[in-house]
């Protein structure tokens, strides 16, 4: 099985697209703590709490504050719906 190289991350708020990137790893603030996602993750639905969403793309780490909402992991796509 060839592992997927990147996760396509898309963070959307009701006001704008916060970020859209191909990330090597993503970390989401779940209700009970951080949840790390690597390529090839199982499908998952996560409710988000308040905290910092970070992802690593091209060796650089980016961070965004998020509050509430949810994330859906399907295939190599991570869709995050959040406030702010």
């Amino acid at each position, binding site marked *: 099985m060839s592992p997927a190289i990147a996760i396509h991350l898309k963070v959307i708020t*009701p*006001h704008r697209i916060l970020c859209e990137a191909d990330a090597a790893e993503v970390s989401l603030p779940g209700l009970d703590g951080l949840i790390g996602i690597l390529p090839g993750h199982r*499908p998952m*639905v996560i*409710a988000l709490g308040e905290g910092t969403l970070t992802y690593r793309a091209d060796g650089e780490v980016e961070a965004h504050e998020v509050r509430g909402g*949810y994330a*859906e992991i399907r295939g190599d796509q991570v*869709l995050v719906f959040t406030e702010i």
Partner: protein
Amino acid sequence: MPNLIDLRRRIKSVKNTQQITKAMKTVSTVKFRKAQRGVLEGRPFWHEAPGVLGQISAWAGAGAHPLFAVRAEKRVRVIVFTSDKGLCGAFNSNLISKALEFIQAKAAGAEVKLILIGKKASNFFKKQPFPIEKAYADKTDCLGDADFAELAGRLSRAFTFQETDAVYIVYNEFKSVLAPRITTVRLLPVARDAAAPGFELSAPDWEPAAPALLTALVPRYVEDQLRHVYGESQAAEQAARMMAMDNASKNAGELIGDLVLVLNKIRQAGITKELLEIISAVEAMKE
């Protein structure tokens, strides 16, 4: 031939009207810009969210959350979004006729209750035989989060206690400045659109466990969707008013042009007549 004083008066009145329509256009342009920004910024979110929620509902199964339950539609609620004020072209009339069509179709097989937003819808459906559950007919241009939370709560409760089997929304979606698109969406139950692609059978992991997650997620979604639809309707209303007032100003301009032409002709005719009289008088005196 109309007399000069009447014509002048008429021109003045048309000019006044034009001034008003121009002012209204300016006002709605400003309001429109604001509403449009909100709607366009929210588009990506609303482009994706219903599909994802539908997918989640399909994964979780219809029994996982009260608002997921798809039942035979025996009692239906329809929410109609219109505006309070007129002077926005066919914005309300088109929507109301489409809504009526939709409601009549639904009423054939179910008991329909209406929730009306905007004075125009309230005034129209008062005369129709369908029961109105609630009508927001005053100051609907400044409905706030509290109103939508209340409405979403009321609908969710009614749905959970099986007082209603489906909730539909009929509204003007802001498509372009030229014309809105009348759209009908189903608010409840939250279920996957049968035509939506990309369905995967393998159930996902839930974090936290499905019940807790869905409890946090679904009511919020219903509320947000109402708010989004309201935003669309507002933007479409302002766009429609902007266009209507622009047309009115243009028509007034044309009318003024025509009237001024007539006025000048009459004035000219008057002057010519007077000149002729003077000249002929002078000629007569010479003899």
